[in-house]
């Protein structure tokens, strides 16, 4: 394993949290990475932005004067549209995130696309108040810094600099704690976790049994452990011919076999089944073998 791989592994292991369900089962929860959260936010802002661009283009196309509040109020229809527009601006700023995070998925469209969701810390139930609190804080963390940047706040001299430092504290907050909490998460008692969706794959030992052709003995099967078994499972499920060939070669070298020019998939499937049966029977007696080194 290269150093890069092991570094990635320790980093992702640092994001693992356990959730104890009321049934007493420890479920692994993984804290969402800061990158995916930032990307989710960007997606949500883009959805809001383009939504508004479309609405404004449509309104201008109809022939409305959007320059000022007074200009709008001149016609009755314009007045109604003006109210709706101002309220829509308001609700997109405060209501969009609230509405979606209160839904059953606990995620805005951006979060959903990246497979993350909001959850209460410490295995509690997520409540409406928590979602309100975390989204009220979003104002200082997202919208005000964005407006500050767009409004070129740096030019304002000393106050501009002070405001910049102050806002930077909020923006950099997620980088200063283990759970990647932003200030809103801290106040509301929530965090953002990965929400994996997995499909049930086929059972592996359903293929016709080949143990007639290949008989593996105790010595051959005790070479590998659970880690190698899972790597082999991944290779078999992927079904990449080159990888199958390479793995079959490596296993043959290791156990000292020469299979000649036989079908690699057949060989690997039966080796997988035999190895898993061997390791699982060990498991039933409380003996586990983590990898080939143990």
């Amino acid at each position, binding site marked *: 394993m290269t150093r890069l791989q092991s570094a990635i592994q320790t980093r992702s292991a640092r994001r693992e949290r356990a959730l104890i369900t009321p049934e007493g089962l420890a479920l692994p929860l993984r804290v969402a990475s800061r990158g995916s959260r930032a990307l989710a936010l960007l997606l949500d802002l883009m959805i809001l932005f383009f939504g508004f661009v479309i609405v404004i283009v449509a309104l201008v196309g109809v022939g409305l004067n959007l320059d000022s*509040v007074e200009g709008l109020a001149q016609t009755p229809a314009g007045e109604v549209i003006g109210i709706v527009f101002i309220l829509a601006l*308001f609700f997109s700023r405060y209501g969009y995130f609230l509405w979606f995070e209160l839904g059953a998925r606990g995620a805005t469209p951006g979060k959903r696309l990246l497979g993350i969701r909001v959850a209460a810390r410490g295995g509690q139930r997520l409540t409406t108040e928590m979602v309100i609190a975390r989204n009220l804080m979003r*104002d200082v963390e997202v919208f005000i810094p964005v407006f500050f940047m767009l409004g070129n706040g740096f030019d304002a001299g000393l106050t501009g600099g002070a405001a910049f430092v102050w806002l930077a504290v909020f923006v950099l907050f997620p980088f200063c704690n283990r759970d990647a909490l932003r200030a809103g998460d*801290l*106040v*509301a008692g929530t965090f953002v976790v990965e929400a994996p969706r997995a499909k049930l794959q086929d059972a592996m030992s359903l293929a016709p049994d080949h143990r007639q052709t290949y008989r593996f003995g105790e010595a051959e099967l005790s070479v590998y452990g659970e880690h190698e078994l899972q790597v082999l499972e991944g290779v078999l499920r992927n079904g990449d011919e080159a990888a199958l060939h390479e793995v079959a070669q490596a296993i043959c070298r290791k156990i000292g076999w020469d299979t000649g020019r036989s079908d690699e998939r057949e060989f690997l499937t039966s080796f997988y089944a035999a190895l898993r049966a061997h390791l699982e029977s060990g498991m039933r007696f409380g003996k586990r073998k983590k990898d080939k080194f143990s």
Partner: protein
Amino acid sequence: MALDYLSKIAWFRQAEIAPSAEIEAASLRSDRFRLEREVDWQRLERIVTALEKGRPGRISDDDLLDLPVLYRKATSSLAVARETSLDAAAIAYLEALVQRAWFQIYGPRETLSGWLRGFLGGGWSRAVRAIWLDICIALFFMVAGTAVGWLLVSREPDWFYALVPGAMSGGREPGADPEVLRQSLEPTASADGLSVFAAYLFSNNTGVAILAFALGFAFGIPTLLLLISNMALLGAMLFVFVEAGLGYEFVAWLSVHGTTELGAILLAGAAGIHVGRSMAFPGQRSVLTAAQGAGVRAAQVMAGATIMLVVAGLLEGFVRQLVGEPSMRLGIGGAMLAVWCLYFTGMRKRREQAE
């Protein structure tokens, strides 16, 4: 039901095959364990997917009744599989499934409308009563801010221009002609265009209130500064009108919406101070738990402050511009103040009363 009928037709029935032949064929014990149970897992997955999509109507009565059992079966399968099976894909599937089901079963129990009913029927007023100390602190600083604004402008009129942004004063400045000032308090002739104005005021004021809350995160100090600076503006304005002999008219003009709006800003500021204070002085609890408890309580107060600001926007946009008599204005403002005070002190949940 049409759906029940559809499910009787084989084509619409979703896979509920019992794979008995396959179970026999599986050579591994752990695979047989899995094949015996995967029908239940997939049934749970269908229910959870329907819940996630927000379409609980699609779940049949049988499925709904079996949901707790299916969930517990899946958790127990996962616990057993972890100890007996090395099928990584199946374990990953179960972990994801149990997590999704956990979020649905132990997720929020209320609908938004149910929450709103509980909120208006006692949750809000209780949260407001719970932060009474912070309301007192916020009130003190608001009064202090007004006094500061008054004193500064009375000593040195130039302060007025520092406190009040130019666009906002609109000719209302120290030494202005009393007639101009009186004009600015007059109602407009009709309600045309006022609704847009009201909506604009609402979204603007709510922004300020949310800012007052959110800034409380830094131990409440920025919230206090925001309260003082906003109220100093009011104090400066008040001085200008009193100097012109229009103090009574100005207070009446302001009170129509001001009692509601300043009440909302008071609550928002108090909510911010509450969060900041609990983080600065968490007591026996850790900072995180203290911040969370305060944040959830303050969020309820804030949701209420938004409602107050809607009312204030309507009063400011319509009533104030249409009612001209100072005593009438003062009466409306006073009545609103009384309504809010009565609501916050008197509204209690039934359960709370029984205790």
